[in-house]
């Protein structure tokens, strides 16, 4: 009897679970009850992975929306529009730049959420965090190397026609350190202005122990200046609520409020869920890689362009080449590699065609970099996909490849008859678009006789290999973000020998160890061009300098660019919100509506009917 009862109870339990579940659905449908009404809420995906750790802007990697270039809680002085190349006003306006000083005027209407005015004191405080405290996050710590002094001056406010006073802030370029006004421009967007009157007392309470302060989560009603503030969070989502007294509504946006009252970032555990949720309209905007996006157009999913390449190119995934290893140190060998790869195949098969045609060099022939790109140079010096040329280059350099009777590469020997060791392309395992690019590149290079293989490793080993140069070739996406310092920063990041160190020691840029300043082939022109460009104010001169640098890149091939990808994937659903910025309606750059200059989209979105 007991036995029967246990079974009956069990079956009842299972039925109960199913029954309760279905009932839960009915209940919710009947009441339509959620804590955040759908018509007032925007759902965003893809900028927060894993559970939120902290909302302290002085931590190294706080959770969304405090990290990166998010303008929702803490705001920078200006934001960069990746479409126009302009710095747009946020906390400050009226940008003036010379090689020595960068100046802005602070918006005198800016206010903190507790009603305290946001003044130049907050700006100076934020810019000096790196100087005053050890172990500040990188964007604050790096200020010291580029800005030697921040001075404030009272000027007539141009916004009120000079009737009132405003604070003009001068950022003096640090001539003794890096002497680079371009990065000072970057920092206008990178350094979030923090409330001195709220953060300084907290630090003092902790005896100015910065590491102790970094353990504060600042998740309870923080003092912010942005249009939203933290409402609640869990390991499943982060919820922001609109601040109706946001200063910028009146000062910047024509006395309007952002359309969505709630801003929710659900935290999913795999890429596919973002794609499904976007398709079902449960997500309004996503920043994840979704293959074959054109198949989702029927489900109201849109992108910047309606047709290929769907996204605006903004960064360049490439393979770094280790110059300290043989035969990669051989120029002909590198050029042969660049000529062996079928870039069209990479574009079509690895990244769903989300890239326009790639041209040789490290400057993009599109967007704001276009004016620095020369098609003539690319034709003359650049390596294009050409297997005959690749084989010829290898032959001329004395390399011989032995194939078996099925045409598979057996081994490769160099001019001295010695076997060339099999090269590996280090790439994180499981990053599917990179894996696909690597596989195609390997297939193509082996076909012309280069003995190379895929080296998929754990992400932890990848991050270790990168700074210490422990790789033959390595997949990398340098500086994906759109900034005013591009394309200089990209060229600098790949080619600068400022901190050249041998393999095994940390390098934060040029991890391929190109152009050893102590080597016999040292090309002084590279470093002097990299030093000169940030100070050139004349466009014609600038174009000349960039062309010269790009030609050196094409001749030396210090890395192998594979495709162009967008700065951020920007995909939206028109099921609940419409009027997204697109190619036909480019009122904002192709960035999600919280990121850099994309934030202004929040005031223009319309509820779908």
């Amino acid at each position, binding site marked *: 009897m007991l036995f029967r009862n246990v079974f009956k109870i069990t079956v009842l339990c299972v039925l109960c679970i199913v029954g309760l579940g279905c009932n839960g659905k009915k209940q919710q449908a009947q009441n339509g009850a959620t804590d955040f009404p759908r018509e007032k809420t925007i759902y965003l995906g893809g900028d927060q992975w894993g559970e939120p*750790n902290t909302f302290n802007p002085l931590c*190294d990697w706080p959770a969304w929306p405090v990290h990166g270039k998010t303008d929702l809680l803490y705001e920078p002085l200006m934001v960069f529009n990746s479409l126009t190349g302009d710095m747009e006003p946020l906390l400050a306006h009226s940008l003036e730049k010379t090689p020595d000083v960068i100046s802005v005027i602070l918006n005198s209407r800016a206010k903190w959420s507790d009603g305290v005015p946001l003044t130049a004191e907050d700006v100076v405080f934020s810019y000096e965090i790196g100087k005053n405290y050890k172990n500040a996050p*990188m964007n604050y710590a*790096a200020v010291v190397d580029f800005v030697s002094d921040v001075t404030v001056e009272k000027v007539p406010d141009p916004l009120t026609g000079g009737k009132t006073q405003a604070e003009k802030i001068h950022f003096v370029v640090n001539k003794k350190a890096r002497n680079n006004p371009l*990065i000072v421009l970057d920092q206008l967007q990178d350094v979030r202005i923090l409330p001195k009157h709220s953060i300084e007392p907290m630090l003092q309470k902790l005896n100015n122990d910065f590491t102790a302060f970094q353990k504060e989560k600042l998740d309870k009603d923080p003092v912010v200046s942005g249009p939203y503030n933290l409402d609640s969070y869990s390991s499943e989502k982060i919820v922001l609520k609109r601040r109706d007294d946001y200063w910028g509504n009146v000062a910047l946006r024509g006395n309007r409020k952002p359309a969505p009252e709630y801003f929710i970032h659900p935290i999913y555990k795999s890429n596919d869920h973002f794609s499904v949720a976007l398709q079902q309209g*449960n997500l309004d905007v996503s920043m994840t890689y979704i293959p074959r996006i054109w198949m989702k157009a029927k489900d109201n999913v849109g992108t910047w362009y309606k047709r290929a390449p769907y996204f605006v190119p903004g960064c360049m995934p490439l393979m770094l080449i280790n110059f300290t290893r043989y035969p990669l140190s051989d120029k002909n060998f590198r050029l042969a590699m660049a000529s062996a790869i079928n870039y069209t195949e990479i574009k079509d098969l690895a990244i769903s065609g989300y890239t326009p045609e790639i041209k040789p060099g490290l400057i993009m022939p599109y967007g704001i970099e276009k004016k620095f790109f020369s098609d003539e140079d690319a034709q003359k010096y650049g390596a294009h996909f050409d297997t005959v040329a690749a084989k010829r280059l290898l032959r001329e350099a004395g390399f011989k490849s032995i194939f078996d009777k099925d045409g598979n590469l057996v081994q490769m020997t160099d001019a001295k008859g010695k076997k060339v060791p099999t090269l590996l392309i280090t790439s994180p395992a499981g990053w599917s678009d990179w894996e696909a690019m690597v596989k195609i590149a390997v297939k193509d290079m082996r076909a012309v006789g280069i003995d190379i293989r895929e080296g998929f490793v754990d992400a932890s080993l990848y991050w270790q290999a990168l700074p210490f140069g422990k790789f033959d070739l390595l997949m990398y996406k340098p500086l994906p973000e759109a900034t005013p310092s591009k394309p200089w920063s990209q060229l600098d990041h790949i080619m600068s020998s400022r901190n050249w160190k041998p393999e095994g020691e940390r390098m*934060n840029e040029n991890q391929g160890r190109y152009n050893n300043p102590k080597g016999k082939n040292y090309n002084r022109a590279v470093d002097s061009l990299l030093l000169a460009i940030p100070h050139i104010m004349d466009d014609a001169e600038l174009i000349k300098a960039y062309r010269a640098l790009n030609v050196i890149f094409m001749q030396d091939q210090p890395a192998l660019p594979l495709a162009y990808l967008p700065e951020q994937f920007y995909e939206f659903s028109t099921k609940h919100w419409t009027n997204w910025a697109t190619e036909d309606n480019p009122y904002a750059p192709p960035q999600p509506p919280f990121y850099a200059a994309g934030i202004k989209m929040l005031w223009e979105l319309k509820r779908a009917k």
Partner: protein
Amino acid sequence: MFRNHPTARYILTRGGWYFLTFLVAVTINFFLPRLGPSNPVDIILAKAGGVSDNATRQKEESYLKEFGLAEVDKSGNVLRDAKDAPVRTSAWKQFGNYIFMSLKGDLGTSFMSYPKKVTEIIKTAVPWTIALQLPAILLAWIVGNVLGALAAYRRGIFDKVFFPLALGANSIPFFAFGMLLVYLLGILWPIFPAVGGYDGGLNPSFSLIFFGSVMYHYILPFMSLFIIFTGGQAIGMRSMCIYELGTDYVKYAKWLGISESKVLFYMFRNAMLPQLTGLALSLGVMIGGALITEMIFSYPGIGMAVLSAIQNNDYPLIQGCTLLITVSVLIANFTVDILIGFLDPRVKAGRGVK
């Protein structure tokens, strides 16, 4: 001492062995992640990014110090060797610190989710994992065993239909089955939600609506586990029972004309013993096995934390999670060991209980 209390002696010796196993497991769990060549602080620095070499160096020292991975001098500065590399704290010294802190109940701060405490991460995630897996495993175990026994006893049409079904369920990997469920019932005919543990527009609270939403989101992940487990258990039980049916005691009981359900019960009891061990094992791997279900359904739980901890060499979180897995495996096995001690006459006889 326990000569006159064989049961107590049995429990104590078993307990002793389990404690020893526990110590060995904790030691291995501590040293294994540290054997690899990669180093968590390098991953952190890569994540922090940056253009300033001074700042990078400062940050490296600060994290090494904070996580107790480098030796410091009296004034709190990180010691550096001749090659200017920080002097690493030896693994044994770290082990000492870890044991000392664990005994105080402090599992440390996660490297990757800095400054979150490991206990905090585990505390919010584990209830979801247990709430999903425990009912699924237990209910599937009971239903599967009963159906398996019935199939073996009744044979005929019931068995002919049921056995292939169970075999089919058992041979589908449960991640594939989960994906199939999501695709069919979540996307193609969206009857059930495909994603999450509760509606995205709700915050956790003690309300009927929230509870209803949780139950609604529970069905697909629950079914993906329940159906597969049931199939597996039923197949095991069916063959055990067929074996038992051929034994003398069953034949004898049948000749005596004992009622069908009574015979079934006798047989069930004996056939169940290996199944019980199986249950202990599946309860034990519950936490480790949660990952796939979580990834398929984006369901809250500890599995994802374990995965990213391992990928990022987040030592404290790896230690915290493996400690949890170790403890749950051992407790489940210990409980079953004790239960078998009472249920299995052979074990009883072995320790001299009449």
